[in-house]
């Protein structure tokens, strides 16, 4: 048995070194605008992007032998980095790219199965993937991320005394969404991904899920508006800080669990539908939750 394992390991090692031997190593550099735009397109493999202080874009990495070429084109203040594959090839050859861009660049990415890891890029981000995961940090710029089955993880990086990132929009089909330390405005959509969100000082949130669960931990601005909707997913809120909000919770078949005290009531004497309306403090902020079958939990 042990010798069989050794043989398999040896074959794997030979296959790996053969594959590496076929990989083309690339390195490119181009001057860039400190606040320009960078777009990265890669079908498979990986993309690591980090912000730096230089007004320059640097790309290094390796391309499988199935990759046709790596394009790096500059047009005004925009730079396109694109892994080009032969159009007639059925399987997606991989490219692993390590990219440095000016820290305040506006970044756009587009990948299929390639994972994206992004660090210290402080301009607006517009990220898209089919099945690759996206792991990034968000600063003060506008933030958009979209994926089909890849998970999206966003870490807010603003300082404690400052309101967090502006507008954040994240959309997945089945990928999970993890958001930490972001605030102000959130728009989140998923069909079956689970959402775990920790926000500070939310002013507006609009969250929709079909089957995925939502767990939101947040504090709210005085006139905040938080809306969440689910079909089968569970919605759970944990509120931090002083709560001064009106709550309007309604579910067709789900249950409502409320740590604030007031109990939910049946909408119709005979038939489905449960509603919970109450005020905490003076009721300045608005929290509105609707579900079909999903349970709702409110706590502080």
């Amino acid at each position, binding site marked *: 048995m042990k010798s069989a394992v050794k043989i398999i390991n040896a074959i794997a090692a030979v296959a790996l070194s053969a594959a590496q031997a076929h990989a083309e190593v690339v390195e490119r550099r181009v001057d860039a605008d400190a606040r320009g735009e960078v777009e990265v397109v890669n079908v498979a493999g990986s993309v690591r992007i980090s912000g730096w202080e230089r007004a320059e874009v640097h790309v290094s990495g390796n391309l499988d032998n199935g990759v046709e070429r790596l394009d790096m084109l500059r047009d005004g203040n925009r730079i396109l980095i694109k892994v080009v594959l032969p159009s007639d090839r059925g399987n997606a050859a991989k490219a692993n790219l390590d990219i440095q861009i000016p820290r305040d660049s506006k970044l756009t990415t587009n990948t299929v199965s390639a994972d994206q890891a992004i660090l210290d890029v402080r301009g607006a981000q517009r990220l898209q993937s089919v099945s690759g995961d996206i792991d990034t940090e968000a600063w003060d710029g506008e933030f958009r991320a979209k994926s089909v089955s890849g998970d999206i993880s966003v870490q807010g990086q603003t300082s404690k005394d400052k309101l967090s990132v502006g507008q954040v929009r994240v959309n997945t089909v089945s990928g999970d969404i993890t958001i930490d330390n972001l605030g102000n405005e959130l728009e989140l959509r998923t069909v079956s991904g689970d959402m775990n969100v920790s926000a500070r000082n939310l002013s507006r949130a609009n969250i929709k899920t079909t089957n995925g669960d939502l767990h939101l931990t947040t504090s709210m601005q005085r006139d905040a508006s938080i809306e969440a909707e689910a079909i089968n997913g569970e919605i759970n809120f944990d509120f931090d800080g002083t709560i001064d909000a009106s709550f309007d919770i309604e579910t067709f078949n789900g249950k409502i669990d409320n740590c604030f005290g007031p109990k939910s009531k049946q909408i119709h004497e005979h*038939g489905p539908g449960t509603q919970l309306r109450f005020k905490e403090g003076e009721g300045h902020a608005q929290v509105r939750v609707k579900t079909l079958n999903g349970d709702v939990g409110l706590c502080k």
Partner: protein
Amino acid sequence: MSNNTGKLDRALSSLPRDIEPSRDLWPSIRANLDRTPETTRRPALGTTTKLAAGFVLLVASCATTYWITRASMQSATATFATTDGNAVIAEYLRSRAELDRLFAERIAALPPKTRAKLESNLADLRRAENEIVAGLTRNPSDPLLHELLMSTYQSEAQLLADVSEIFAVDLPRKKS
């Protein structure tokens, strides 16, 4: 109710028909357009995207109208909103076979696992729609069900539009 309608009519008629900007905005818009060169040639919007995106907007607008009017006028407007929403939904359902065909065509180049996930999530949305419709047959005037149905159709249209948009990356085509 009629008192509310009167108030709303008076408030609407008091709104100005148009608002002049405080200064001429065109020169700065023009300058911005000139400063934005196209580095990458974006694929033209496909039929699926246009169709599905159109429905996303229509359904969103209906849902918004419904929500606003529901908040101020309660049940009497539900009939209006439902009729309005039904027209959008009927139009959407008429086009759905074509959207499905384009969707299947679009996802054919994806890895089988991703394709299966997309198909299963689309099926989840349709199961949810069927469940809500079944609920509505038993509780036809339930405003929550109307709202959730509209929203679920919007999610479905959004999914179809997203699949089209995500093809901005040139996927390798399988050899025939």
